[in-house]
């Protein structure tokens, strides 16, 4: 197959970078949703992570501290959601949307003085020359540390949900909170932890945008990536490895369509711009058709408030 001037190796290396913010946010949201909580505020948490990370990096000149701050900032915001939905039993869908509104606003206020600044770049890792290897070098051994972290998180979440006792409890809480409660598990504690984890992941994703991909702070710079992350969780039917598949598929098509334009392929641009969304839908249709009614279902308690009345 003739790729024109497109280099498939560089394409794969770039799509991994481009997909990382969505992957991070989605893997966090996956854990939240598996605990039975639907947090639609991913966009708001991402943007707060982006601005917190950027501010701290500018002030300390340390991208590492910036990432920590990004995660912390978004976690704080996610706890607002936690308190409202878990303690005050507010509606999760509406509260999540409110969180996005609030996050977009507060991030713009925080970042007022930080537009048009430049941060120190955080270098990619180069594994003792392994990055010089053909093909796998640029893909596997010359990425930004957070890209590796995102992959580790996918494996970690998969392992946690599948094999650990806490993971089992988390799933139980998500499937049937009343039963989990009567078995003596702390529904609120589990969900708070999950929400905080989701916030931290979204914040990391946001900080990756403002510190690595762009890198700059501008109002509203997440430009809807939080929504895509939500869609990817559904796409993955709440399974960790499929979040990776979904995020890389979406990010891959997005990067590929730009490459096709750059290489001068005569495909209508309108079609190319729609392609990431259409292909994601198409792939999901193919995966979900032919599966029984129970396949790929959401956690049973998703979106329902829990109150220990017993």
């Amino acid at each position, binding site marked *: 197959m003739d790729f024109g001037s497109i280099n498939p190796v560089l394409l794969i290396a770039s799509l991994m970078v481009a997909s990382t913010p969505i992957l991070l946010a989605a893997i966090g949201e996956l854990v939240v949703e598996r605990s039975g909580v639907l947090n639609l505020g991913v966009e708001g948490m991402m943007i707060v992570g982006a601005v917190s990370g950027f501010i701290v990096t500018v002030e300390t000149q340390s991208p590492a501290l910036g990432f920590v701050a990004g995660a912390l900032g978004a976690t704080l915001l996610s706890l607002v959601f936690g308190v409202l939905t878990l303690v005050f039993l507010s509606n999760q869908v509406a509260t999540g949307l409110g969180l996005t509104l609030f996050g977009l606003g507060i991030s713009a206020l925080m970042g007022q003085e930080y537009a048009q600044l430049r941060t120190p770049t955080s270098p990619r890792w180069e594994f003792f020359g392994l990055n010089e290897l053909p093909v796998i070098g640029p893909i596997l051994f010359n990425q930004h540390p957070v890209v590796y972290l995102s992959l580790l998180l996918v494996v970690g979440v998969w392992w946690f949900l599948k094999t650990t006792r806490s993971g089992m409890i988390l799933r139980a809480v998500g499937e049937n909170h009343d039963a989990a409660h009567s078995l003596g598990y702390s529904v609120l504690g589990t969900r708070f932890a999950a929400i905080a984890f989701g916030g931290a992941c979204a914040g990391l994703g946001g900080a990756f945008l403002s510190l690595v991909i762009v890198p700059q702070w501008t109002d509203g710079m997440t430009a*809807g990536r939080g929504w895509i992350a939500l869609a990817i969780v559904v796409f993955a039917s709440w399974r960790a490895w499929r979040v990776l598949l979904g995020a890389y598929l979406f990010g891959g098509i997005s990067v590929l369509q730009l490459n096709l*334009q750059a290489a001068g392929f005569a495909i209508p641009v309108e079609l190319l711009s729609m392609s990431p969304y259409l292909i994601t839908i198409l792939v999901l249709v193919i995966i979900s058709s032919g599966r029984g009614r129970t396949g790929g279902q959401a956690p049973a308690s998703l979106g329902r408030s829990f109150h220990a009345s017993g």
Partner: protein
Amino acid sequence: MKKRTFLAATLAATLATSAFADGHEPTKVGFIYVGPIGDGGWTYEHHQGLLAVEAEFGDKVETMYQENVPEGADAERAMTQMALQGADIIFTTSFGYMDPTINVAQKFPDVKFEHATGYKRADNVSTYSARFYEGRAVQGHIAGKMTKSNKIGYIASFPIPEVIRGINSAYIHAKKANPDVEMSVIWVYTWFDPAKEADAAKALIENGVDVVMQHTDSTAPQAAAAEAGGVVTFGQASDMSEYAPFPRVSSIIDNWAPYYIDRVRAVMDGTWESMDTWDGIAPGMVEIGEITDAVPADVKAEALALRDALSDGSYHAFTGPLNKQDGSPWLAEGETADDGTLAGMDFYVEGITGEIPN
């Protein structure tokens, strides 16, 4: 409940207008922005214009602005609101505000309106725009000289005349400087998505481009070029000097301040008239940011000479012979493009590959 009409509102506005005339009330200046003032590009530069107006006139003016105003019904409300508050002149700074501006202007005949980049005028509505393509010509020349791979990339937002003009102007002058030059255009189909701009820049670079031009406002392409190394970029909308001297070797700066100060002064003096302004490098509405030492001295000298020729009118950026993309003749030898064709430009010039989406 007493039903008041717009007549009453207009009356109120008129009263406000006559009140300032006796020198006690400051002139009220309103700005409607399409993005946030922190966008670092289009709206940021208009807001710099507002600040310049404040600096120029001090307490003789009172400014107000509204950010993130969607085009359509919300824009009409925002303008009406400012007119009701007694604004004397309102700048509406996005193409999509055209019809709303005309509608509101009809209701408030004593308030002056200034609409950016549109073509509909009225007795109390002026239009103004900048000839950014003049700046693109200078960039194109530098690009043609600087490219080693002979491939220039262009990140474009939406296929509107403004953007197409810029692509053509850049291509014509790059080609003149270097006949082997090719240009790849990526349409990102968004006004604002920094991460997508970064991805587009990377895609261009990975396809062999070593000069990236952009008609989008964020510095993301600059950062992508800096990381790739050896790729030349230009600042867009604002100077982006944080990426100088390399990769950013020069820039186009939107400088609305002189125009805004002029027009506010005209309102104060009572000399304001409806007119159409399309200014370029000469009056300073389009500025060429510092050309850094990363550009060889002879190229820099040529670029500056080109700028001066555009500025004093001895050279027009669209001078024939030029053909359209399909090979049909457009401008004969020595002929220059008329403003009408430029304003509605919807074709590429000969030599650019690819199609304009429509």
